[in-house]
């Protein structure tokens, strides 16, 4: 293909194969670690990066004779998530044992939920890049516990001694998880990514999780199948454990391409777990035996049912903060922000809070939004620093905007000062004073400089007088050069015209 990107409809995931159109069907299962102090069923702290097997006790190590007790706050957080997704909260909810053998699961069963989950039948309205909304159904929201962590050692990783083996650290074992299962409502990898982005923003907003995909506090499995439009659902495969938004999209694109070309070659799709390798971009099928999915669920006899009444639901509902969609609308209505800026600020709760503080202090919401979504966000994104850790506080940014507002700084100079603020953490006034960066708005001073330059350049001056407007920029450049860019541009323009007119 020459000349840029291929048209969208022929890109993987949009569904066109060599033999005609295919419809893609995607559903996502999200696991989110809750940011509680302690684990789901014992009092061990929830931590990240501690020495292995130091955040464990007989309960989360699965020792015989120990008893799990559910974490009140985990139930509350899970309820908050279910409510924010518009789910019906079950009046009666029960934990089940999901039985399977794996070394990261010390009890050989995971305490999860089965036919009586906490929340059922919700919906998330996902906003696409073009501003349109599409609804994704939420099948269920349930509570469970995380497994431990396996680290591969020996052989392939470069250790010289011994055969391949794995090391097990149970610090993560028992961390409260909430699983959010979507309906198969997504038709493209882009929609899946948009859903995931929106869900992540929502969870962050709710203050129930760190939602850090790299650290594994948010994990995503995708079920994907393809079919001819109008045909019954095709056989699905499950893409496991993708740990970034980009991989989710790329993994789905690769798997869809694989399924379509297999079907067009007359092959059949086998229900299986598949793995996407982000390095090679290829899909590997992990042939799982039928038995692996026979979990023999049964009610967990060590835990009693949870009965949830109306009063509890209302109490939790009251703790749900303003949701991103509502916030976006308010930013547009109250501050007059463009939809794009409002969307960015509403999707990220700390960033939105930061913006509101700057807007309040500076009194100029649109300018505040420009800076927060522009220079500040660019810096945060490139350094990976969270907005609450930013060297520039909302008060400091409002101080900079004040200098911009009263003409002390031009936009260009303000950007330079902002960089210094990021590096030093000092406030704008101090930097401007110390470095003599203030804009030259002194008429007498500027006139002196202009007069000298006009005198030194009789040729261009004559040209301007003969109507060559373009020459003006030559004089602006000369003055800016001499003033190190600090001349007030509006004033300079005015004075130059006056002088050149003779």
């Amino acid at each position: 293909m020459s000349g840029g990107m291929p048209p969208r409809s022929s890109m993987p995931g949009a569904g066109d194969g060599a033999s005609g159109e295919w419809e893609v069907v995607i559903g996502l299962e999200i696991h989110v670690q809750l940011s509680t102090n302690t684990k789901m069923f014992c009092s061990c702290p929830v931590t990240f990066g501690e020495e292995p097997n130091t955040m464990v006790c007989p309960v989360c190590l699965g020792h015989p004779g120990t008893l799990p007790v559910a974490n009140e706050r985990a139930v509350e957080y899970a309820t908050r998530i279910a409510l924010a997704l518009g789910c019906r909260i079950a009046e009666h909810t029960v934990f089940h044992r999901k039985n399977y053998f794996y070394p990261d699961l010390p009890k050989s069963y995971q305490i999860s939920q089965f036919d009586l989950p906490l929340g059922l039948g919700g919906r998330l309205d996902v906003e696409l890049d073009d501003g349109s909304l599409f609804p994704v159904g939420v099948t269920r929201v349930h509570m469970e516990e995380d497994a431990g962590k396996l680290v591969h050692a020996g052989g392939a990783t470069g250790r010289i001694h011994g055969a391949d083996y794995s090391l097990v650290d149970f610090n993560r074992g028992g961390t409260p998880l909430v699983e959010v299962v979507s309906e198969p409502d997504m038709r493209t990898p882009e929609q899946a990514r948009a859903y995931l982005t929106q869900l992540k923003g929502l969870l962050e907003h709710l203050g129930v999780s760190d939602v850090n995909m790299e650290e594994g506090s948010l994990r995503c499995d995708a079920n994907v199948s393809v079919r001819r439009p109008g045909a019954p659902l095709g056989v699905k495969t499950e893409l496991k454990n993708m740990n970034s938004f980009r991989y989710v999209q790329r993994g789905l694109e690769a798997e869809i391409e694989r399924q379509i070309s297999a079907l067009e070659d007359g092959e059949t799709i086998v229900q299986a777990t598949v793995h996407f390798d982000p390095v090679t971009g290829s899909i590997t099928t992990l042939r799982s035996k039928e038995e692996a999915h026979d979990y023999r669920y049964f009610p967990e006899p060590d835990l009693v049912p949870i009965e949830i009444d109306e009063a509890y639901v209302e109490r939790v509902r009251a703790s749900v903060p303003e949701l991103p969609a509502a916030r976006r609308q308010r930013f547009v209505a109250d501050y007059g922000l463009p939809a794009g800026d409002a969307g960015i600020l509403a999707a990220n709760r700390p960033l939105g809070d930061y913006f509101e503080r700057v807007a309040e202090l500076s009194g100029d919401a649109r300018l505040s939004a420009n800076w927060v979504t522009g220079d500040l966000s660019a810096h945060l994104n490139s350094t990976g620093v969270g907005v609450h850790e930013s060297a520039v506080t909302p008060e400091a940014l409002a101080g900079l905007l004040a200098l911009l507002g009263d003409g002390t700084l031009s936009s260009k100079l303000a950007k330079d000062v902002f960089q210094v603020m990021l590096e030093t953490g000092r406030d704008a006034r101090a930097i401007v004073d110390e470095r003599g960066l203030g804009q030259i708005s002194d008429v007498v001073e500027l006139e002196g400089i202009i007069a000298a330059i006009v005198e030194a350049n009789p040729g261009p001056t004559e040209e301007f007088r003969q109507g060559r407007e373009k020459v003006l920029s030559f004089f602006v450049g000369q003055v800016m050069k001499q003033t190190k860019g600090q001349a007030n541009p509006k004033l300079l323009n005015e004075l130059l015209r006056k002088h050149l007119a003779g």
Partner: protein
Amino acid sequence: MISREEVEHIARLSRLRFEEDELERLQHGLSAILDYVKTLGELDLDGLEPTAHAVDLKNVLRADEPGVCLSQAAAVANGPVVEAGQFVVPRIG
């Protein structure tokens, strides 16, 4: 009587290996247990809600407050093979 295949399936799920004669014995033994439990089906339970427990308990929850953990040495003390404070297991997958 449950089938021989079912017994083998359950054995695989349980990661247990049985000899030929044991499988046969288990097929009869497990069937006898299931038949015995089946006698409960003779009771008339119409209109009765199933209960999860013999005792009528609900909402047993704990406050989200950290407690005491084991030391690393104690945590891995029962591991047959231990390295760097972690349990050593055969490589998976």
